[in-house]
């Protein structure tokens, strides 16, 4: 890695509490929806009978038709979380290797997000502290639509590597 890039690494010392870090745009498309279906494998099943609570085995090979595209109910919440993570990773980079994602506080908005509609991802540092020789960093990742309506917020608690 070039020297100037090393200097740009987001180390613990570089974070400032209660300070925006940056923002980016993510636009979920058919490819990402297809990836999500492959990952979750949940497009193959219809409504489940809640009266039964048996174990269901997922193959993970998601071979569905991606029928959520254009659905009035919007993109799956799990996909939105994945896109929020992508936004965070895009804004806070380069990072030192070895960071650990310890926990998340998630809030989904009630506004639906749809494929091919750009979403704005904002990332800020909420707080940081050192405890038991670990560097803790709290980041807030907020995803909004073009009308600034909340799609998802993710408060990540990270153990920062350096």
């Amino acid at each position: 890695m070039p020297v100037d890039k090393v200097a740009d690494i987001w180390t613990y010392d570089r974070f400032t509490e209660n300070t925006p870090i940056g923002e980016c745009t993510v636009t979920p498309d058919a490819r990402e929806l297809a990836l999500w279906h492959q990952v979750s494998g949940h497009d193959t099943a219809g409504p489940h009978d809640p009266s039964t609570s048996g174990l269901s085995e997922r193959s993970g090979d998601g071979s569905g038709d991606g029928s959520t595209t254009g659905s009035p109910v919007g993109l799956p919440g799990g996909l939105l979380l994945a896109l929020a993570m992508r936004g965070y990773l895009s804004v806070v980079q380069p990072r030192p290797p070895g960071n650990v994602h310890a926990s998340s506080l998630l809030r989904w908005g009630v506004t639906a997000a749809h494929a091919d509609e750009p979403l704005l991802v904002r990332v800020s540092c909420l707080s940081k502290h050192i405890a038991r020789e670990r560097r803790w960093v709290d980041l807030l990742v907020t995803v909004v639509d073009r009308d600034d309506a909340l799609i998802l917020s993710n408060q990540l608690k990270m153990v920062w590597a350096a």
Partner: protein
Amino acid sequence: MKTLQSIPSSLVAQSRTIDKESIQLYAQLCDDFNPIHVDEDFASRTPFGRPIAHGTLTLALVWEAFQQTFGRDVLPGAEAEIRFVRPVKVDTRVTARGTRTEAAPGHHWAVDVTTDDGVVVLQGTVTLPATTPLG
């Protein structure tokens, strides 16, 4: 609105083996190619010894349990507190479960993901908005 009795007391448990392919697919989705997830050589030199899954990939199985239980995505308006308790090494079979808690009937769920050995790798709560029709 369904009555409390008609709302399931537990989620339809979901199991899967988190293999190399699913980790690669999720890496593409998140654009997160951290070598701890996708590079076997790198991971072999870490305390984990093998590549580990992205935490939110493991979490996806919890969302799948809600999806399978209620037949649709119930996350709009929801809140969740999730702790990634242990890393999930590649080729580990895990199961996501959820139980409706009595504190807030119908809308408050305790969730976890465990390995076949009973090791809890993820734990948390999910609160669905009161307006979410269940059942």
